[in-house]
C-alpha cells in the first residue's frame, strides 16, 4: 500500500470534507498532490522539505509518495554548516525551502529549489486552487510498492551523531491502520499540529488525522501563547505536544485563567514526561482526556499508549502500584510486541529492568547505512525500562544516560521528578559524573524559579528525604537554562560537556 491510497479513499468517500485549515478539502488536497506529482515527472529522485509546516507539507508528502520518491523533512533551524551537510546527504533532490535554507541549498550540487508557495495553495488566492504546479503533465497512477522508502527522518541525536531513519510505505501504512479508523472523527473535530515536520509525530500525526477525517490546524512555530490562542480560535478538539510544550502551555493557562473549552483530548510524547508536569496538567484541564505515548522515529511513532482512563485511575488511586502508572507509558499497541531483555538478549520477567526490544509491522529499525533489526524482526530501542505485572511499560530513558554508581543503576528521571517537586526548582537535569570511588555519582543541574535561591545542601536534603542515599546528588550546579534541541529534548551530551 502507498500512503496516497489513504488520501484517495478519503477523497472518494467524503470529497467536500475540510482536511486542512479552513478551506482545503480532501478532493482539493488530492488534486494538488496529483498536479505536483505530475510536475515532478522529470525531477530529481528525492524530495527534501526544509521549511515550516504549511499546506505545502501534506501536498509535497503525498506528491513524493505518488511518484515513489522518498520525502525527507529536515530541520530548517539547523545552523548553516550542519544544514549544508544534511542537504548534501540528500542530493540529488528537489528542496522545498525559502529564506536562508533555500540560499544554502542553492549552493549545493544536485539540488533544485522549489518555493513552498509553488507546491502549495497560493497565499492570497483561494486555498483550494493549487498554484503554479498546474499545467504540467498529469500524474499517472500512484506507484504501488509497499517496500519503497516513504519518509526519511534524521533522528534527534541527543546521545550521538544524528542518523537517517528510513520509514517505508508498509511501516507507515501499518501504523495508520493499526491506530485509527477511517473517517471516524466527527465533523467538528480539529487537531492542532505544532511539532515540526522533521519530527516523527509531525508526519504520523498528519497521516492519522487525514485518515481519521480530523481537520488539521497547523502552528508553524510553537510558542505557548500562540498555541493557546489558536486552540481557542480554531475550536481545536485534539492536540499532541511534547513535555516541554505542555509545561509552557500549563503556565500560560494558569496565568490567563481562560482554559481550553473546546479541547477534549491531549496526547503527549517525544520525551519523558515528568510526573509533576502531568499531574499539574490533569488538575488544570479536568475535562480533557490525556494520552501519553512512547515511540521512536524508527518505530513509526507510538508503540505504547497510556490512555485517559489510566490517567484518571492513577491520579485517584491510593494503591502505590496503580498510582505509579502515571509515570509509565501505558501498554503496548495491539499490533506491537514489546519486551524487556538483559544485555545478553535474554527475556526478563515482569518488574525487572533491562533494555526494551520491540517488534511489529510498523517497526522499521532501519537507517540509511543499514538495518538494525535482528533475524526475528526485533529492534533494540537502546532505552532502559521494565514492564509491570499488568503490562504497563516504564521507560527509564536512554541506556547511555543511566548512571552506574558503585554497581547500582540509577535512572536520572526518578531523581529529576523529585527535584521538580521542590518549589524553587523550575527545570532540572540529572547526569552521571565520573568519580574515583563510585565510578559515577549523581550530578544535578538546576534552573531555579525567579525570586528563589535554594542552596545545594537544601536540594540534597530534599532528595535524601525522599529517595535512597545513593540518589542524592554529589554535586548541584545552578544554571540559567538547560540545553535543549528545538523540539524541547534535553541535550544531555552538551550538558555533560558543559559542566564536567
Amino acid at each position, binding site marked *: *500500500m502507498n500512503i496516497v*491510497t489513504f488520501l*484517495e*479513499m478519503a477523497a*472518494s*468517500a467524503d470529497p467536500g470534507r475540510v482536511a486542512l485549515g479552513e478551506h482545503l478539502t480532501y478532493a482539493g488536497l488530492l488534486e494538488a498532490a496529483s498536479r505536483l506529482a505530475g510536475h515532478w515527472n522529470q525531477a530529481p529522485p528525492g524530495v527534501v522539505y526544509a521549511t515550516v509546516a504549511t499546506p505545502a507539507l501534506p501536498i509535497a508528502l503525498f506528491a513524493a509518495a505518488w511518484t515513489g520518491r522518498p520525502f525527507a523533512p529536515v530541520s530548517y533551524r539547523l545552523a548553516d554548516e550542519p544544514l549544508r551537510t544534511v542537504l548534501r546527504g540528500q542530493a540529488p533532490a528537489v528542496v522545498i525551502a525559502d529564506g536562508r535554507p533555500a540560499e544554502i541549498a542553492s549552493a549545493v550540487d544536485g539540488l533544485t529549489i522549489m518555493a513552498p508557495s509553488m507546491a502549495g495553495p497560493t497565499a492570497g488566492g483561494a486555498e483550494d486552487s493549487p498554484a503554479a504546479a498546474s499545467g504540467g503533465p498529469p500524474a499517472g497512477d500512484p506507484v*504501488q*510498492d*509497499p517496500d519503497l522508502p516513504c519518509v526519511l527522518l534524521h533522528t534527534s541525536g541527543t546521545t550521538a551523531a544524528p542518523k537517517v531513519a528510513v520509514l517505508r*510505505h*508498509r511501516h507507515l501504512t501499518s501504523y495508520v*491502520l*493499526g*491506530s*485509527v*479508523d*477511517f*473517517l*471516524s472523527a466527527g465533523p467538528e473535530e480539529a*487537531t492542532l499540529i505544532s511539532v515540526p515536520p522533521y519530527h516523527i*509525530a509531525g508526519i*504520523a*500525526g498528519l497521516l*492519522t488525522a487525514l485518515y*481519521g477525517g480530523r481537520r488539521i490546524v497547523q502552528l508553524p512555530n510553537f510558542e505557548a501563547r500562540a498555541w493557546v490562542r489558536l486552540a481557542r480560535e480554531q475550536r481545536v478538539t*485534539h492536540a*499532541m505536544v511534547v513535555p516541554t510544550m505542555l509545561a509552557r502551555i500549563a503556565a500560560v493557562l494558569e496565568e490567563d485563567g481562560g482554559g481550553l473549552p473546546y479541547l477534549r*483530548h491531549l*496526547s503527549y*510524547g517525544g520525551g519523558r514526561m515528568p510526573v509533576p508536569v502531568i499531574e499539574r496538567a490533569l488538575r488544570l484541564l479536568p475535562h480533557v*482526556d490525556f*494520552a501519553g*505515548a512512547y*515511540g521512536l522515529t524508527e518505530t513509526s*511513532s*507510538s508503540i505504547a*499508549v497510556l*490512555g*485517559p482512563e489510566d490517567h484518571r485511575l492513577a491520579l485517584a488511586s491510593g494503591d502505590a502500584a496503580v498510582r505509579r502508572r502515571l509515570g509509565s507509558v501505558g501498554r503496548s*499497541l*495491539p499490533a506491537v510486541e514489546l519486551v524487556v531483555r538483559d544485555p545478553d538478549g535474554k527475556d526478563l520477567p515482569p518488574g525487572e529492568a533491562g533494555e526494551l526490544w520491540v517488534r511489529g509491522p510498523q517497526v522499521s529499525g532501519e537507517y540509511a547505512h543499514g538495518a538494525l533489526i535482528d533475524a526475528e524482526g526485533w529492534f533494540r530501542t537502546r532505552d532502559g525500562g521494565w514492564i509491570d505485572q499488568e503490562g504497563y511499560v516504564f521507560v527509564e530513558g536512554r541506556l547511555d544516560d543511566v548512571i552506574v554508581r558503585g554497581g547500582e543503576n540509577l535512572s536520572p528521571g526518578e531523581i529529576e521528578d523529585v527535584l521538580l517537586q521542590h518549589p524553587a526548582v523550575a527545570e532540572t537535569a540529572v547526569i552521571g559524573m565520573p568519580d574515583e570511588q563510585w565510578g559515577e555519582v549523581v550530578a544535578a543541574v538546576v534552573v531555579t524559579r525567579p525570586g528563589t535561591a535554594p542552596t545545594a545542601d537544601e536540594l540534597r536534603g530534599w532528595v535524601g528525604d525522599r529517595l535512597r542515599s545513593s540518589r542524592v546528588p554529589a554535586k548541584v550546579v545552578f544554571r540559567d537554562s538547560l540545553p535543549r534541541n528545538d523540539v524541547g529534548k534535553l541535550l544531555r551530551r552538551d550538558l555533560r560537556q558543559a559542566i564536567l
Partner: protein
Amino acid sequence: MKLHPGARLRSAVSEAEVIVVRAPDDEVDLRCGGVPVIGHDQSAAQGPGDDGHELLIGKRYSDASGTLEVLVTKAGSGQLTLDGEPLTIKPAKALPSSD
C-alpha cells in the same frame, strides 16, 4: 491465487476494490459475490453482483483465523469469501489518539 500485503484487487461483479493488509502464505480462493476477485489492472465483467451485501469503504474484513485481512478502498456490493467462508468486519479500535 496467491496474495501478498499491498496487493490491490477488484471485484469482478461490482465497483468494489480492496487492498490486502495481511495474507496467508498458501494459495487461497478469495471471492466477491461468488466470483473470484481479479487484479486491480484487469477490467471487471460487471455481472449481477448485488447479493445484498455492501462492502463499506475504510472497513477491514478478515477471516476467522485472522491470517487474511483486506481493506476496502472503494465501496461496492458482493460478499467477500475465503475458501467459501464469509469474511467479517473487524470491529473498530478503541485506541486513544496518540499523535
